[in-house]
C-alpha cells in the first residue's frame, strides 16, 4: 500500500477529487497548509510597512491506495492539478506499514 501525499493549488481540489473518483478512488484526507518551493510569495503593505509573505496557501491531499493503483493516482493528479505555472506543487509517495478500519477492525487492503 502506498500513501500518496500531494501538495496542490487550493482551487484545484475539486477537480482532482472528481478526477480521482472517476478512477475509483473514493477516499482521501485534505488539510490546508502553507508552503513554498520555487514560487515566491509576494510583497504586501500594512500601515506603511512593507513585508514579504513567503508561505503560499496550498492544500495537501493524502490518499492511501493499493500498490497497483498508485501509478494511476499519481498520473491523474499530475494531469488535473497542473496549470503549467510555478507553484503547481509536488507529490510524495510513501510506503504504508499498516491500515486499520476503525469501525470493523479490518486491516490491510480490505481496510482501504
Amino acid at each position: 500500500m502506498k500513501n500518496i501525499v500531494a501538495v496542490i493549488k487550493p482551487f484545484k481540489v475539486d477537480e482532482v477529487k472528481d478526477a480521482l473518483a472517476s478512477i475509483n478512488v473514493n477516499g482521501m484526507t485534505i488539510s490546508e497548509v502553507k508552503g513554498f518551493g520555487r514560487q515566491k510569495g509576494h510583497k504586501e503593505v500594512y500601515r506603511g510597512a512593507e513585508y514579504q509573505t513567503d508561505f503560499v496557501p496550498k492544500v495537501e491531499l493524502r490518499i492511501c491506495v493499493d500498490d497497483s493503483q498508485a501509478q494511476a493516482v499519481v498520473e491523474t493528479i499530475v494531469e488535473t492539478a497542473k496549470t503549467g505555472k510555478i507553484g503547481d506543487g509536488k507529490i510524495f509517495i510513501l510506503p504504508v506499514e499498516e491500515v486499520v478500519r476503525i469501525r470493523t477492525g479490518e486491516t490491510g487492503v480490505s481496510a482501504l
Partner: protein
Amino acid sequence: MKYIPMILISIICSLSAAWAGDETPTVLTNKDAIGLVQSHADYVWTLVCAVLVFFMQAGFAMVEAGFTRAKNAVNIMMKNLMDFSMGTISFWAIGFGLMFGVSKTGFIGTTGFFLSDFELGGDPWVLAFWMFQVVFAATAATIVSGAMAERTKFTAYLIYTACVTAFIYPIFGSWAWGSLFNGSGWLEGMGFIDFAGSTVVHSVGGWAALAGAMILGPRLGKYTKDGSVKPILGHNIPLAALGVFILWVGWFGFNPGSTTAATKDIAMIFVNTNLAAAAGAVLAMIVSWMKFGKPEVGMSLNGALAGLVGITAGCANVTPASAVIIGSVAGMLVVFSVLFFDKIRIDDPVGAISVHGVCGAWGTLAAGIFNIGGTSLKIMSVQCIGILACFVWTFGTAYVLFKVIDAVMGLRVSPEEELEGLDATEHGGNAYPDFSTINHASGYTGGGSGSFKETSPAYTGKLVDQS
C-alpha cells in the same frame, strides 16, 4: 332612540358655549408651556446623543480588536469593557466634581462628587448632563488602550483607567468646559474654542497614549536591530472597518450633541462632521496610494477617524467648506504621523497617538483658523495655549502615572506572556476556541528584537516610500 341626535346636539352646544368665553392663546400666555417643551426636547436630544457616544465604545473595541492579533482579542475586550465600566464609577465618584464642580481658582472643581448635585425630586438636568459627560470621559480613557495593546498588564491598565477618568481628564476638562455646569475654567475664560473636544477628549487620550506607548516600549519583533519596521498584522480588517463605521455613527452624537440643546444649530454640526470624516478618508487613501503604490485600508480607516477628530473642535463655528479642508488636512497628516512614530520606534498598533493626539491638536488650531467670525492673532494664541497646556498636563501626569505603576507593579507583561498571548496569560481565555489562530506566515518569526526597555534613537527605518 329618535331623541338621541337632539340630546347630542344640546350637549355639544352647551360645551361650545362654555368654551366660547376663552381667548386665543398667544406665545406670551403659553411661554411656560413652550419652554417646557423645549426643555423636554433638550433632555431627549442630549440623552439620545449620550447613547450614540456610548456606542462608540463598541467602535473602539472593534477597531482595536481588528488591528491586533487574535491571541490578544479577549484582553482587548476586557480593557474596553473596563475602561468604560470603571471609568463610569470613577467619573461618578470623583471626576465629574473635579470637572464641573464650583471652581474658585479656575483650575479645579470642588463640588458635585458622587452626583451630590442631584436631590430626589429636584432638577434632573444634572443627571442628563452627567450622562452625556461620562460617555465623553470614557471616550478619552479608551483611546489609550489601542496604543498600549498586546503588551500591557491588565491590572496596570485598570489602575491607569481609574486615574485618567478621576483626575487627568476632568481637571483639564474643567479648564475648558467647567462653566457648562457649576464650574469655570481659566482656559475657557480666555476664549478657548473646543466645542466637542478635539483637545479636551481626543488630545488628552492621544497624549496619555503617547506616554504609555513610550514607557511600554514596542511589541516584540516590531522593530529590528537594522532599523526596519516589521508589520504585525491585525487579525480582522472587517472588524476594524466595522469599528470605524460605528465610531463615525457615534460621532453624530459626539459633535451635534454637544449643544445639549435641541436647536437648529445641530444641522450644520452634522454636516461638518460628515464632510470632515469623508474628506479625511479620501485624502488618507490618496496619500497612502501615492506612498505605497496601492490604496491601503489601515491608513484609509485611520483617515476617516482623523477627519472626525479634526472637526470636533470647530464643528459649530466653521463652514461646511472649511470642514472639507479640515478633514482633508487631518487625513494627510495622520498618514505622515503614523509613519513618523514608527520611524522613532514608538509602537502604536492602532494609530491612536496620530489620530487623536496629533489630529486633535490640528483640529483645535483649525477651529481658530477657520472660525466663521474671522480669525486673529489673539484667537490663535489662545488655541495654541490650550493645545500646549493639554500636552504639558496630560503627557506630564500620564507619564508620571505610568512610571509609578511600572515601578510598583510593572506596566508590561513578560516576553513569554507576550508571545503566548494575553488571552491565555492574563485572562485564561481564548477568543476563538473553534478556530486555529496560529499565524506563522507573516514576516515576524518571534524571538523578539532584543531588550524592549532600551530607548531607541530615532532611526530611519526601511519603510515603503515611493515619493
